């Protein structure tokens, strides 16, 4: 072993790992990866879903053996002596590894005792952990009754019951609200200052940008390794901000720009559109006929360029997303969804607490909030799948609470995780859904042909839908929901777990749909997506805390460059602060 390997916190040399899917094909999860980080400091594993991040962390934790190459952690060969590694490092899996039926204290004690922490050490360590995580008032509470953010902090505390020489965190911030995400990062930065080595996997690119070193993975291959600045620098002189022409919505403008040759990426941002161009633009001022302003490059911009170079971006380009459907009837500006004082109780628990909003025809309306905020419950009531406890619910002037069946004809619903029949082929799924919506004969054939064409599903007609790649599952689910040409489309967390390309492509389709007059209501906990919405409501603990246009929401946060995420944090903090003032200490959360 070289001296370098001995001093490195971890080192991978030519590591490969493949799995067999249930369908029999072999998937290369990691392909010849070499990577090392020194002791001390913070490193990130960044990449879209299915990049191999979790597999890499499991190899490091000695939970899997590599097919080839060597994995060395703290100078120990992970293939030869995983136990020696496991005794010295800490690892937090995606599901946090907590026992829901044990209390906060019992979870901590379990991990402390497994790690051989003595009673004296506990006495000195526990207060520090409690102060760091803010869990002190909840030690007697069952872990299963904690909010997502609290669980995540407890999961972290359990890995920190003794000081590990290396801390591995697998996507600790997925599905957690922005506020908890920030608090978690404060803890991580504190640990780094104390000299710990931390490796964190994330699909949030802003988080990767805040690390000292980053390994960018895509489909098992290494795209880049080094300080995040090196990745950002790829976008030097290629990042711009463009102002949409008067009367054009940022999202329509963005969708148009994304189809322009020479543009790698375009996202709506603070009412404008952020662009990344294919090549450095020598002549600042205008681009593709629009006025642009040069911007400092970001990690995400460089990341998109990296992925574009591997051919990942090719699939979003060269496709027209012009509305290919005749417009839906009805006047724009009519209120088509009206919700007033909607409540839903589960026993004593008020999951949805007097929610009110209305959506006009052709609008995109977003419901934003952390897991457990009541988004899905609200959705199910809107679709007539769950009876409301109180309140008014009207869809296309039909009272859903009275006539849910007739209201349902007006709407299409894409459930979380997409309700598809895995064993049926793509064609069979579409045929089934078409008939379920009462389509038959020529009409059915016409709509299925439209769906296959519009969603580029033609090559997969005969493939069982369980074997579709993730992004295509989402397309098929959307196609199925649109077969009967609904006026209103409900989408529940459709972009959860989608990579940046799938995300942008998805929004292009939604933008095109809205342009034909379809009303779209969508839930997400990925805050930047609110920029695509005409209006959005922020939900927390079943209550609407704020609603309005993205600009109105941003105004809740201080500073001109504030993002929706900043606004979300400000709004939720203010609301929770008020709640704490009115309630005795510890009664909140």
């Amino acid at each position: 072993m070289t001296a370098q390997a001995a001093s490195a916190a971890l080192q991978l040399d030519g590591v490969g790992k493949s799995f067999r899917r249930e369908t029999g094909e072999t998937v290369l999860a990691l392909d010849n990866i070499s990577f090392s980080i020194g002791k001390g400091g913070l490193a990130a594993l960044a990449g879209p879903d299915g990049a191999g991040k979790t597999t890499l962390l499991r190899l490091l934790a000695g939970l899997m053996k590599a097919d080839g190459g060597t994995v060395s952690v703290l100078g120990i060969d992970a293939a030869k002596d995983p136990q020696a590694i496991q005794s010295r490092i800490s690892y937090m899996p995606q599901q946090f590894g907590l026992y829901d039926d044990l209390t906060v204290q019992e979870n901590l004690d379990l991990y402390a005792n497994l790690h051989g922490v003595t009673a004296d050490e506990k006495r000195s360590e526990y207060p520090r952990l409690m102060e760091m995580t803010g869990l002190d008032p909840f030690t007697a509470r069952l872990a299963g009754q904690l909010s997502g953010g609290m669980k995540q902090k407890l999961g972290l505390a359990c890995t920190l019951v003794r000081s590990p020489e290396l801390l591995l965190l697998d996507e600790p911030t997925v599905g957690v609200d922005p506020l908890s995400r920030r608090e978690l990062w404060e803890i991580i930065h504190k640990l780094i200052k104390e000299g710990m080595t931390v490796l964190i996997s994330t699909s949030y690119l802003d988080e990767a940008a805040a690390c000292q070193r980053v390994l960018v993975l895509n489909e098992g291959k290494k795209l880049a390794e080094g300080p995040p600045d090196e990745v950002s620098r790829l976008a030097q002189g290629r990042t711009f901000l463009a102002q949409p022409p008067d009367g054009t919505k940022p999202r329509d403008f963005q969708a148009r720009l994304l189809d322009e040759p020479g543009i790698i990426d375009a996202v709506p941002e603070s009412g404008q559109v952020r662009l990344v161009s294919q090549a450095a633009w020598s002549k600042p001022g205008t681009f593709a006929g629009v006025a642009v302003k040069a911007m400092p490059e970001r990690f995400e911009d460089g990341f998109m360029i990296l992925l574009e170079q591997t051919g990942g971006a090719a699939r979003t380009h060269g496709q027209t997303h012009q509305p290919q459907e005749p417009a839906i009837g009805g006047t724009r500006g009519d209120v088509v969804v009206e919700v007033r004082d909607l409540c839903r109780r589960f026993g004593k628990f008020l999951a949805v607490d007097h929610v009110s909003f209305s959506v006009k025809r052709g609008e995109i309306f977003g419901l934003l909030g952390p897991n457990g905020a009541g988004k899905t419950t609200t959705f199910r009531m809107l679709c007539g799948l769950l009876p409301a406890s109180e309140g008014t619910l009207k869809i296309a002037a039909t009272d859903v609470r009275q006539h849910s069946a007739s209201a349902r004809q007006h709407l299409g619903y894409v459930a979380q995780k997409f309700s598809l029949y895995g064993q049926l082929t793509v064609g069979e799924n579409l045929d089934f859904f078409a008939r379920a919506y009462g389509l038959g004969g020529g009409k059915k054939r016409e709509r299925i042909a439209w769906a296959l064409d519009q969603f580029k599903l033609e090559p997969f007609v005969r493939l069982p839908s369980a074997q579709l790649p993730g992004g295509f599952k989402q397309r098929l689910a959307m196609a199925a929901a649109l077969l009967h040409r609904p006026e209103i489309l409900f989408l529940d967390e459709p972009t959860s777990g989608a990579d940046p390309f799938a995300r942008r492509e998805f929004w292009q389709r939604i933008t095109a749909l809205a342009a034909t007059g379809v009303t779209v209501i969508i839930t997400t906990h990925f805050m930047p997506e609110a920029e695509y919405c005409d209006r959005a409501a922020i939900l927390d603990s079943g209550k609407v805390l704020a609603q309005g246009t993205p600009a109105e929401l941003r105004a809740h946060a201080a500073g001109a460059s504030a993002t929706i995420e900043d606004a979300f944090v400000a709004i939720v903090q203010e609301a929770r602060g008020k709640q704490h003032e009115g309630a005795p200490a510890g009664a909140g959360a």
Partner: protein
Amino acid sequence: MTGWLAKLRRIRALTDKETRQILRDPSSVAIGIVFPIIMILLFGYGLSLDVTRVNVAVVDQDASADSAGLVGAFRLSTYFGVTMVPSLAQATTLVMNRKVDGALLIPSDFTRRLHAGGAELQILVNGTDSNQARIMQSYAQGPVASWSARAGGASAGPVTVVDRMWFNETNNSRYFIVPGLIVMVMTVIGAFLTAMVIAREWERGTLEALFVTPMLPGEFLISKTVPYFGLGTIGFVLCVLAARFLFHVPLRGSLLMLCLAAAVYLLVALGIGLLVSTLVKSQFLASQLVLTLTFLPAMMLSGFIYDLRSMPAVVQWITYALPARYAVSLMQTLYLAGDIGGVVWLNLGILAAMAAALLAATRLATRKQLS
């Protein structure tokens, strides 16, 4: 801290965790305590294989003093209820319609042939319930024998037929059901509950976190075994108390042997549950598998209810692979016959070997690896 001390502390921490989870989960308490009680009451009181009162239609075509004496013997028996009918056709109809359980035909030449030395009686039973039919057939021998003993007493000398059931003098089916019940209860607690516990940790991702600690696989398995062994012991005690005080089943063997046998079988059941749970990693699949692998065979093929010797040879061979078979035989022997050295040690030895093999296989299958 020495290695052993650290090991014990980890086992203690894991066992405490497991115990807390059992106590907080109403379904484990239900399966561990409520279920045995229901089983005891259901099988103890509800399931009886004794035929107590068989209704027979009697056709007396002979109408002699001899035949009247025979009918009188049937009337006197506590096992029979007699209905006199004039014709065989009527008796057959009653049997078909299940108004009576069987028919007794005394042919017209009964007296004549009796004195010639070879009288015949015809007994008709409804064979749809073969068990009951067979029992009735054998019961009918009783009154016939007692009558012929009296009738032939003068001429051919008293022939006394003494019918004695060994080990179960009152021929009470509870005596052999209750010992089998102990096996059933322990099968459910041992195999069914533990089948869920490791699969649950796989499903919830907690095992992944536990693996990245100094914990060793053996320590993890001990922590899964100890609390469920405790829960199984509670079920065992409930059964033994019920056998003694509710059903008054005599225990001929020693209590110590009984406890030893129960403990060994409990380890077998735990081994099956843990092995299945470790291999399939899904709670639903594990519970289905354990149900078909342990509970149903223990019910049908262990000799708990159905006599193994009356099964087809192929099925009998299968039963040799079932731990419950040895356990039921062991429990019945200990309860009804006593500490019969050969039988007890043989069955105990086979069970101990099975327990060792299952637990060793589970240990080998539990590696700190995800794939």
